[in-house]
């Protein structure tokens, strides 16, 4: 294993560039964009889970002073292209407004455009929609049955994707195993729920033919998809990526929002804006998360060594699908977690119901899968009466086994799992935590310790697209950076997408500063618009440290090489006899023989007569980075290299359940984390803390509950509960660094860190707390109500 390299700027504490504007209230979010003559949109949403739309009367609304347009699905659908799902289901068509049938409660039916949002809302109350409710389906397992009401009859079934993968000798391993265990776990429908709702403004310039769009967006191929849906050439839609996005963690995909607003801007000839209110965001924003039932069987020996796994995952994607079915695809790349499981059968089923659609959520399906795997590890330990940490140690892939090929075709790049687990236990330290647990138990609390060890695949490729849709032949998921040095010697770097809190300006300036040996705080980083931009796939899949960082390094290295050529040419020495320091280049043998940064820049910009033959004047370079290990299609049996890099995290939690109120308290939280070389340690730690808090919400608090009638019962922050500073405990992070051999600096991804292991670890602690009274719980979120039921069940069984 290679030792981490030494760096000048990488890995050091540095104030994030972005913070300075945020702390003085000078961020520029989509809702802050001021456009002259701006009109505002309000929405009329379906109150029914499933209903025919019989008639819509818009006359009274349209007659109201200040109202500019009232739009229905009939007009919009006739003039735009449907947004299609990421899997091969062309009959599952989705438009911003329902036409003919509304398929979930909260689905948009009519849009009103008026001089102010208040007027638009007034007018919305005057729209009369006549509905005829038809049979609906909200239970995902019932939706699988042949006689279930169909959400999209044209699709012929509620199943939008189903495939059984067999990787390795599953039947033989199960037949040979002395022990088998089967279990079911339930991951509830929660989401990332950013504090900023989705906002989009659009303005169409008839003279230039360009539609300008400002949106709180985090979505691959967003400008291309928007132009396609609006039936516009790609070069007529300009998405401005220089807006700050107020949190996303996957969900800020608002394509339907942008299609609607773009269409209205073109229709009215005025700038138009739509900002979701909180209920619109929760109910009709189409940003709920995975909602999964896992049925898992494990085959193992008496020592707890697991040889094989069968996993069936049913994911309820709601009434329409974009990329959501693919969230069952990404976990294929880490389907055995960090363990040496030799064979896997994986059945992935995406099913549609009359609920709000699902969108990409932090980890793209990996956190639920990790929870399912980790629950099994604990169950095997309990079954064999083995220590849960010891059981993990017996199954973890060893540090000398990398690169390690898992049954589903992905090779893990590097890792040292046992060491990172050990570091977390030592930091706790475990013996101390056991004492605290015992003290809590002595006070009558149900107290337990939880563990999880899991992976964060990173470097975001899109190999699940061809895996889940053979018509899709995507094999690249590039990212890019352009850097220029101006005549006044300053460096400016351009990136291709927006940022939603990942501090990309800090990332790029640190990397460029490192390569060019220039002070990072002097380097400006800009977000291009989509017509000026470089090929990018946006900050998804824990990829930007690897992909944007790698592209920035690539472009900076090209510039550095050019500066070396200029110096060699002008100093009359071969490059091998020159040394580059702080941007100045001097002869190794004679430091007086040198060209300063300023002199080199001036030659490039002004003195073509001093330029080496073949070099263009000026100093501007771009670099497009292909995902390391990318470029291949899946094998016919569905084996594929999913993501290139694999970060690892180990979690240790001490939690208690009050037996009277069933309130959960997390007393201690330690996370061992290895994401290779950290470019910006403060940023990595921040994401990890935040991911753990987000996972705590998923484990204990957050759920989009629907009634049997298909009504969302958690549409506000009074009933969809987010963790506050009182629920999230102080967290200790212990770093470890196993560099990736595949990346520029040895970095791996960390944008989904914490979240991928904390729900599993917290669930582990709760079950450890419940075990002494014979209770257990296998569904999230573990709310006081759910825990009370678990305790009552156990009491009934024992009585």
């Amino acid at each position, binding site marked *: 294993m290679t030792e981490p390299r030494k760096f000048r700027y990488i890995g050091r504490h540095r104030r994030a560039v972005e913070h*300075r504007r945020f702390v003085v209230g000078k961020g520029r979010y989509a809702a802050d964009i001021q456009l002259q003559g701006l009109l505002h949109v309000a929405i009329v949403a379906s109150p029914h889970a499933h209903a025919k739309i019989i008639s819509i009367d818009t006359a009274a609304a349209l007659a109201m002073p200040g109202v500019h347009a009232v739009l229905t699905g009939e007009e919009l659908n006739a003039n735009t292209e449907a947004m299609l799902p990421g899997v091969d289901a062309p009959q599952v068509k989705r438009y911003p407004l329902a036409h003919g049938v509304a398929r979930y409660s909260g689905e948009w039916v009519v849009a009103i455009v008026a001089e102010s949002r208040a007027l638009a809302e007034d007018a919305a109350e005057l729209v009369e929609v006549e509905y005829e409710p038809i049979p609906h389906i909200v239970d995902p397992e019932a939706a699988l049955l042949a006689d279930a009401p169909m959400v999209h009859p044209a699709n012929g079934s509620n199943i939008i994707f189903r495939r059984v993968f067999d990787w390795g000798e599953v039947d033989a391993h199960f037949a040979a195993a002395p022990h088998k265990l089967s279990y079911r776990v339930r991951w509830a429908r929660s989401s990332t729920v950013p*504090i900023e709702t989705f906002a989009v403004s659009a303005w169409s310039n008839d003279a230039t033919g360009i539609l300008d769009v400002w949106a709180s967006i985090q979505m691959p191929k967003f400008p291309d998809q928007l132009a396609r849906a609006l039936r516009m050439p790609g070069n007529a839609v300009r998405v401005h990526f220089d807006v*700050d996005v107020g*949190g996303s963690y996957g969900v800020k995909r608002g394509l339907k929002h942008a299609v609607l607003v773009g269409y209205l801007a073109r229709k009215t000839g005025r700038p138009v804006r739509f900002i979701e209110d909180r209920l619109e965001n929760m109910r009709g924003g189409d940003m709920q998360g995975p909602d999964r039932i896992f049925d898992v069987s494990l085959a193992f020996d008496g020592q707890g060594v697991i040889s094989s796994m069968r996993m069936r995952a049913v994911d309820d994607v709601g009434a329409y699908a974009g990329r959501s079915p693919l969230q069952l695809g990404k976990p294929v790349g880490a389907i055995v977690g960090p363990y040496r499981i030799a064979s896997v059968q994986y059945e992935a089923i995406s099913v549609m119901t009359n609920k709000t659609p699902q969108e990409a959520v932090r980890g793209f399906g990996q956190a639920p899968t990790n929870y399912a795997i980790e629950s099994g590890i604990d169950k095997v330990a309990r079954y064999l009466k083995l220590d849960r940490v010891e059981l993990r140690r017996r199954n973890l892939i060893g540090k000398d086994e990398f690169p390690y090929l898992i049954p589903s075709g992905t090779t893990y790049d590097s890792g040292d799992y046992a060491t990172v687990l050990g570091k977390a236990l030592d930091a706790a330290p475990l013996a101390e935590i056991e004492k605290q647990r015992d003290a809590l138990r002595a006070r009558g609390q149900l107290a337990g310790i939880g563990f999880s060890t899991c992976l964060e695949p990173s470097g975001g490729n899109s190999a699940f697209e061809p895996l889940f849709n053979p018509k899709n032949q995507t094999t690249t998921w590039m990212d890019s950076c352009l850097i220029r040095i101006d005549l006044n010697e300053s460096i400016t770097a351009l990136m291709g997408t927006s940022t939603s809190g*990942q501090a990309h300006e800090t990332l790029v300036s640190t990397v460029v500063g490192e390569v060019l040996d220039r002070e990072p705080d002097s380097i400006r980083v800009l977000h291009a618009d989509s017509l000026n931009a470089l090929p990018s796939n946006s900050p998804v899949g824990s990829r930007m440290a690897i992909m944007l960082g790698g592209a920035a390094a690539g472009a900076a290295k090209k510039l550095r090489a050019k500066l070396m050529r200029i110096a060699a040419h002008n100093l009359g020495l071969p490059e091998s006899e020159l040394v580059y320091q702080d941007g100045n280049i001097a002869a190794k043998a004679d430091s007086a023989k040198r060209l300063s940064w300023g002199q080199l820049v001036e030659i490039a910009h002004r003195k073509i007569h001093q330029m080496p033959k073949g070099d263009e004047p000026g100093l501007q370079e771009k670099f497009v980075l292909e995902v390391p290990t990318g470029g291949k299609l899946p094998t016919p049996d569905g084996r594929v290299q999913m993501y290139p890099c694999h970060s690892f995290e180990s979690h240790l939690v001490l939690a208690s359940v009050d037996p009277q109120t069933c309130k959960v308290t997390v007393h201690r939280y330690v996370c061992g984390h290895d994401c290779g070389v950290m470019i910006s340690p403060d940023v990595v730690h921040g994401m990890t803390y935040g991911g753990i808090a987000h996972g705590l919400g998923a484990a204990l608090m957050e759920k989009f509950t629907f009634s049997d009638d298909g009504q969302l019962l958690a549409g506000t922050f009074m009933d969809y509960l987010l963790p506050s*500073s009182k629920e999230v405990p102080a967290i200790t992070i212990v770093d470890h660094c196993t560099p990736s051999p595949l990346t520029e600096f040895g970095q791996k991804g960390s944008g989904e860190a914490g979240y991928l292991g904390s729900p599993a670890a917290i669930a582990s602690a709760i079950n450890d707390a419940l075990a002494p009274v014979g209770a257990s719980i296998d569904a999230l979120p573990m709310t006081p109500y759910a825990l009370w039921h678990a305790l009552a069940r156990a009491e009934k069984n024992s009585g």
Partner: protein
Amino acid sequence: MSKTPLTSIAIKVNGVTREAQVEPRTTLVDFLRDTLFLTGTHIGCEHGVCGACSVLLDGDPVRSCCMFAVQADGLSVTTVEGLAPERGRLSAIQDAFCEKHAMQCGYCTPGMLIACHALVARDPHPDEAAIREAISGNLCRCTGYQQIVDAVKYATGPEGGAHD
């Protein structure tokens, strides 16, 4: 255009009295953002839970989404734009937020800063429990609160004592 008559108000915002005619139903946050263009104050839930819209009203932190602009008539409002001691400088809390990476997307940050300023005004050296209590009405989805707590400790502890 409006069916409702406008009402005259005068609110002292960040030290300057601002006079305007508003619809009675205009919320304070909409007035700050849409009329005064003080877009640093953000809207998160519009039902008083998330705290993103927090401002100081005569020194106390309040939800500007849950009150009308007319209710602030004659009162003094401080928004995030008014927290710095002067242009080009940062308050100790603002500076500590930068130093300790107490934000990511920055969306909840103005409300958090308001809550922390209100805390420090009444308790210059809060312990961790007091800090967590003070920010418990402000939701953040990025940070898990840890680096916010660290920032307030830094600004109010011995190492941050030299700040404004």
